[in-house]
């Protein structure tokens, strides 16, 4: 114990000597310098971590764009119609009645294109919601498929009712474990993104993005029309 005490005192004196101005005070400079470097290092690692996260989030977002535009092409065979059947002869408007996106093959298309563009994540199908919309007898016909479950179909009178329908499905499926993000289609009776037509909507819940050390989660959504040809 005595020996330990002496050693402790010896080091304490050495430390004091290092801090003292008489002996140059270099130890103080060294300690402050190392502390500053440590702070800079922590900041740098955090910046690098966030930077990698934003890069990967952009990759996922672009992948979502490619995947949804590809999935929107899975339309039924009668989609390409000529002037006589493709347009209303009184108003000249495009007739989209009954043209549907096949939900099963659009999910497959989405998954194969998404995984080609964003290779980091496995099990995307578990976090995916796809909703396809078409018009039928002046009503909005929808079909929603969540994860690997079977599709739920239904009809809505007005287009603005769709946002609530999607959000209710998201809450019902993912709302028990955590608070899921909500989808905004800017829908109200006055203005909304959805028209009575053929559309596809995709939502990815809590996509896990691995960065330098952190694992962040983000939800992405994308909405597009089927771009139906009329020649």
């Amino acid at each position, binding site marked *: 114990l005595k020996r330990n005490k002496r050693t402790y005192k010896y080091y304490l004196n050495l430390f004091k000597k290092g801090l003292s101005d008489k002996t140059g005070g270099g130890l103080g400079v060294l300690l402050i310098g190392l502390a500053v*470097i440590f702070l800079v290092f922590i900041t740098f690692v955090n910046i690098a971590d966030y930077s990698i996260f934003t890069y990967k989030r*952009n990759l996922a977002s672009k992948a979502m764009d490619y995947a949804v535009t590809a999935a929107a092409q899975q339309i039924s065979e009668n989609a390409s119609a000529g002037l006589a059947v493709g347009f209303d002869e009184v108003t000249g408007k495009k007739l989209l009645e009954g043209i549907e996106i096949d939900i099963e093959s659009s*999910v497959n*298309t989405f998954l194969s294109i998404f995984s080609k563009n964003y290779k980091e994540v496995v099990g995307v199908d578990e976090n995916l919601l796809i909703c396809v919309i078409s018009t039928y007898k002046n009503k909005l016909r929808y079909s929603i498929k969540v994860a690997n479950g079977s599709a739920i179909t239904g009809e809505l009178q007005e287009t603005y009712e769709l946002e609530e329908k999607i959000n209710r499905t998201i809450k019902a499926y993912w709302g028990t474990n955590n608070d899921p993000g909500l989808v905004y289609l800017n829908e109200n009776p006055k203005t909304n993104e959805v028209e009575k037509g053929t559309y596809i909507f995709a939502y990815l819940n809590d996509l896990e993005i691995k960065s330098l050390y952190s694992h962040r989660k983000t939800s992405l959504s994308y909405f597009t029309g089927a771009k139906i040809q009329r020649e």
Partner: protein
Amino acid sequence: VNKIYAFIVIIPLIATFLFKSLAFYDFDTKQRYIKNAVDNTAHKVMITGVMTASDRDSLLNELRKLGNFEEESIVLKSGYMDQGALSWLEPYTLGNVLDRGEIFSIYVQSWKGSMISEMERNTADENSRLYFKASAVCRIEKKQENL
């Protein structure tokens, strides 16, 4: 301890951090620009259904400003899709017109590793090099009239 000795320790440490930060910033920024350039080209093909030699040249010019890229650095492929399953992709010939529903893919990779790769690399192992690379796979939207 003299202040001079303290600075001998601190200054190289600060310099190392500075260079590593710069190398990381260089890699991160260029990598983002390269991905953007590839995406812009892919979008153009997605809308028009064709990639011309001038499209390839303008992409190459843009990539050359950011890293070491040659003609062989750009790999173009195309293929088909059946009920959501992707077929085997085959090499794409420039100027070949693709129809709606076909798949187009671009992959670019620099032939020389990035600055951060040169700084961090300990061995001569090729696999440890960090190259600039980006890819995009899209589905053609344009229905071709003349096909």
